[in-house]
């Protein structure tokens, strides 16, 4: 099955957000603060305003209203205070790029520097400067199952709690107990298409945005709220998105800046586009976490208790942070039966860029800790790590740590698929005399955004073609193709005859966003619902036109067949034309909403019998060679298995599995945005290394199928969990090879070298 979108992408014809052009379009640019924490003493924009070609200059004072998806703690442009170096303090619209850049240079800002809160320890210190001294006064968005309550007098923006059984008693009586602390780094999205928005204010229709976003309706609603206008006054139109991975959502910097500039230069359109430095300094990214985790087992290797304490370096504003912290918090102990569990996860304000949702939403960080620690426990027990996992992994009917009775659990099948491939052949000997070889595996589960509501339209036209009208964004994940297949199948029309209408909030019905691996599941169900409506109406019309009972009709390949009398069959086109005595069409509006199956999580204990519409599962296995002399680590093989439920498009699923594995590989081996006192030290691709073809191990990518009872044809999300399993699997392989467990990411040679030397010293000294 050829993807719908890729032939156009192969010819250069596909239109991305950056390709959108309008006549008379102005260039918008913003000025970055350049200092991580400061009071703004004065902003002088006179030099910029005097520059010929400048059409507008804005500062925080122009529109001081705050925004934020969960907590309204973020101004569009810094008002009295700067909280991270990449924050916008002013913006301009000018006739061309050069003028805009010069105007930005001419804006003078005077700062009074404030002490910088860079690390988790800085944020937790007794005398820590408070980033948001009045945090408790901010408006809180109503988010089901989440109580956002910044703790007054601290930098704690959110505290997630999970309580199950009695961990203290269990730890006191356990056979083996292990406790460790692990850390992860800030990872940038690095989608190759940058953030871009073209905005235009029309006196009658309001604001229109042409932008690269994963969630056009969510963006529209948040922007309307921020501008204090009805949602109908904002329209968001999306074309192809050149990669997002959780980015390009919510307002952040670019959307408010573009909207406020467009208001000022109306009716001229203005385009704001990030350059690569903006992407590194001012976009969100994967949040760093410090995880202290403790695990206890009995003599047979059964988990009796696990607890984790997690500190998240959230950056200047909460953004989606609390969601990341909660949704990764309740899976931080892994896909296992754990009778006694405790999690405390804290989201801390710091003077760094506010990280946000990033493919697998916090789970890679949690798995790096929990899955590595299991291998330590296995070593203490003298048990094979795979066997330890087998004894504890969630099975059909088991209760999860939140209290859900699990079904259609893909964790075991993913782990077994990986184990089989990883150990299918003996490891080749090391290539160097000082080399050692090891293997390791990890398994994860991930939830999806819940509850959400999704709507979609399907229109059968009088020529027999179908319009699929859905706010499902194609950002590379194959959405268009999978959804087209679902509709073609439901309505029995050829795949080629389904036209996918690109998302436009004035045309395509509401959907939360094409994120959280939820689109095939939720939008697929909504489209099935819409298709059924079309089908029902078509059969009614056919019954009338063909003078046959509905139960004697069936749809096949664009035709209505009368059973037992093939001569009376008619094409869809004929049915519609005969019925209406001319052209016409049949429309269906479908929906899929999950509020009725969702059990809101208890904010004190995280108890919920159904916190997630569906669960995703993945496992990874790695074989590494580590040079004991130099610390150099080479991943030789990487096996990744993800449960697709039912693969609607097998090649599309494989693309997601291999892509998520490579993203996990980058996080494991090389990627790290380096901060010093709140400043980013490596904001270029020369210094921030993402994997390329030469970094690739021998890869095996596997699509596992454990059908989900509620998914379309059994399908479930597949895009994210692979990322989460890979770093821990590689860490476990290093542990297996060297006997030394690495606690922080990424696994740079230097770090491994020093860990090996420290271990030797400890051994020699004992």
């Amino acid at each position, binding site marked *: 099955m*050829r*993807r719908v*979108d*890729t*032939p156009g*992408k*192969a*010819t*250069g*014809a*596909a*239109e*991305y957000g*950056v*390709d959108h*052009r309008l006549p008379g379009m102005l260039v918008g640019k913003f000025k970055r603060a350049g200092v991580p924490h400061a009071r703004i003493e004065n902003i002088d924009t006179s030099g910029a305003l005097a520059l010929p070609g400048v059409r507008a200059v804005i500062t925080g004072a122009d529109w001081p209203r705050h925004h934020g998806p969960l907590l309204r703690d973020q101004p569009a442009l810094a008002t009295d205070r700067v909280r991270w170096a990449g924050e916008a303090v002013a913006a301009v619209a000018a006739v061309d790029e*050069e003028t805009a850049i010069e105007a930005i240079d001419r804006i003078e800002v005077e700062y009074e520097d404030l002490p910088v809160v860079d690390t988790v320890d800085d944020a937790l210190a007794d005398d820590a400067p408070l980033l948001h001294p009045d945090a408790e006064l901010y408006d809180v968005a109503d988010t089901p199952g989440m109580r956002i309550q910044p703790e007054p007098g601290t930098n704690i923006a959110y505290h997630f709690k999970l309580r199950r059984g009695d961990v203290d008693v269990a730890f006191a009586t356990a056979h083996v107990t292990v406790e460790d602390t692990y850390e992860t780094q800030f990872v940038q*999205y*690095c*989608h*190759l*298409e*940058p953030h871009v928005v073209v905005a235009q204010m029309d006196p009658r229709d309001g604001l229109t945005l042409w932008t690269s976003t994963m969630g056009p309706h969510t963006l529209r609603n948040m922007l309307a709220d921020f501008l204090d206008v009805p949602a109908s006054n904002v329209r968001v139109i999306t074309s*192809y*998105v*050149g*990669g*997002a*991975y959780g980015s390009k959502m919510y307002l952040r910097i670019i959307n408010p800046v573009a909207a406020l500039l467009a208001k000022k230069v109306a009716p001229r359109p203005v385009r704001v586009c990030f*350059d*690569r430095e903006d992407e590194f300094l001012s976009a969100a990214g994967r949040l760093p976490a410090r995880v202290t985790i403790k695990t206890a087992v009995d003599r047979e290797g059964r988990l009796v208790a696990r607890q984790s304490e997690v500190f998240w370096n959230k950056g200047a504003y909460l953004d989606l942070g609390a969601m990341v912290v909660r949704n990764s918090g309740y899976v931080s102990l892994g896909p296992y039966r754990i009778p006694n569990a405790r999690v405390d996860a804290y989201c801390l304000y710091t003077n760094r860029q506010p990280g946000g949702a990033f493919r697998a939403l916090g789970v890679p960080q949690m798995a790096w800790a929990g899955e590595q620690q299991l291998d330590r426990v296995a070593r203490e027990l003298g048990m094979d790590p795979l066997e330890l996992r087998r004894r504890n992994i969630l099975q059909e009917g088991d209760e999860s740590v939140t209290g859900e009775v699990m079904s259609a659990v893909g964790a075991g099948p993913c782990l077994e698929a990986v184990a089989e491939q990883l150990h299918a052949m003996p490891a080749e000997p090391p290539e160097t005399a000082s080399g050692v070889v090891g293997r390791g595996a990890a398994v994860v589960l991930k939830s999806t955004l819940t509850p959400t509501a999704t709507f979609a339209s399907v229109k059968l036209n009088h020529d027999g073609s179908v319009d699929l009208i859905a706010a499902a964004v194609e*950002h*590379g*994940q*194959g959405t268009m193709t999978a959804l087209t297949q679902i509709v073609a199948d439901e309505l029995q029309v050829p795949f080629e005859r389904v036209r996918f209408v690109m998302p436009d909030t004035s045309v395509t019905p509401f959907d939360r966003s094409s994120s959280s691996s939820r689109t095939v599941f939720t939008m697929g169900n909504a489209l099935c619902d819409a298709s059924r409506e079309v089908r029902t109406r078509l059969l009614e019309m056919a019954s009338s036109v063909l003078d046959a009972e509905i139960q004697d009709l069936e749809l096949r390949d664009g035709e209505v067949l009368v059973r037992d009398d093939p001569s009376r069959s008619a094409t869809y086109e004929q049915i519609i034309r005969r019925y209406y005595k001319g052209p016409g069409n049949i429309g269906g509006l479908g929906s899929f909403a999950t509020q009725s199956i969702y059990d809101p999580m208890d904010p004190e204990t995280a108890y919920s019998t159904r916190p997630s519409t569906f669960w995703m599962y993945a496992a990874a296995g790695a074989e590494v060679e580590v040079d004991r002399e130099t610390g150099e680590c080479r991943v030789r093989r990487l096996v990744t298995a993800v449960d697709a439920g039912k693969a609607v498009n097998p*090649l*599309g699923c*494989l*693309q997601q599995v*291999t*892509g*998520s*594995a*490579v*993203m996990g*590989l*980058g996080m494991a081996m090389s990627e790290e945005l380096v901060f010093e006192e709140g400043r980013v030290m490596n904001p*270029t*691709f*020369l210094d921030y290394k*993402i*994997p*390329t*073809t*030469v970094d*690739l191990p021998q*890869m095996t*990518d596997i699509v596992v199928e454990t059908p989900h009872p509620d998914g379309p044809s059994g399908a479930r999300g597949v895009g994210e969990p692979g990322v989460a399993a890979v770093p821990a699997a590689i860490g476990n392989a290093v542990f297996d090879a060297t006997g030394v467990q690495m606690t922080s990411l990424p696994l740079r040679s230097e770090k491994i070298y020093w860990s090996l030397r420290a271990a030797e010293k400890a051994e020699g000294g004992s």
Partner: protein
Amino acid sequence: MNRTIDLTVNGRHENVEIHDNWTLLDVLRSGLTMLGTEEGCGEGSCGSCTVLVDGRLVRSCLFLGVRASGRDVLTVEGLSKDGELDALQNAFVDEGGIQCGFCTPGFLMTTKVLLEENPSPTEEEIREFLSGNFCRCGGYTLILKAVQAAALAKAGP
């Protein structure tokens, strides 16, 4: 506009008004409104903007526009003929070597040169040759398969 340059793009003679500080990428995107070649980083790292100039691979974001004067430029738009994908494009589509597609034009142009220079490359040679092109969707294994399939298709049955 500071000056006019003459060049050939995808076999067509073009006369473009440009600014002196424009890159070849600006000439293509702003001067000719040819939007198939994409800018990923603007600093020569990611390979998205790769085109051919007189048959040689060039990062168009680093190549000064005035230097393109009198030259023969081939971009992604020049690969398909009469709306039909060429063998290389077909291989990328069929093998799943395209996800978000933003890097695809750069990969296609780089692969075209690879297969001209080395019609049956080993996997190692492909990896080496494509190492300057980023695919953040991480679809490298399928891209490698696509290149191998294209090499086979080119070699014929």
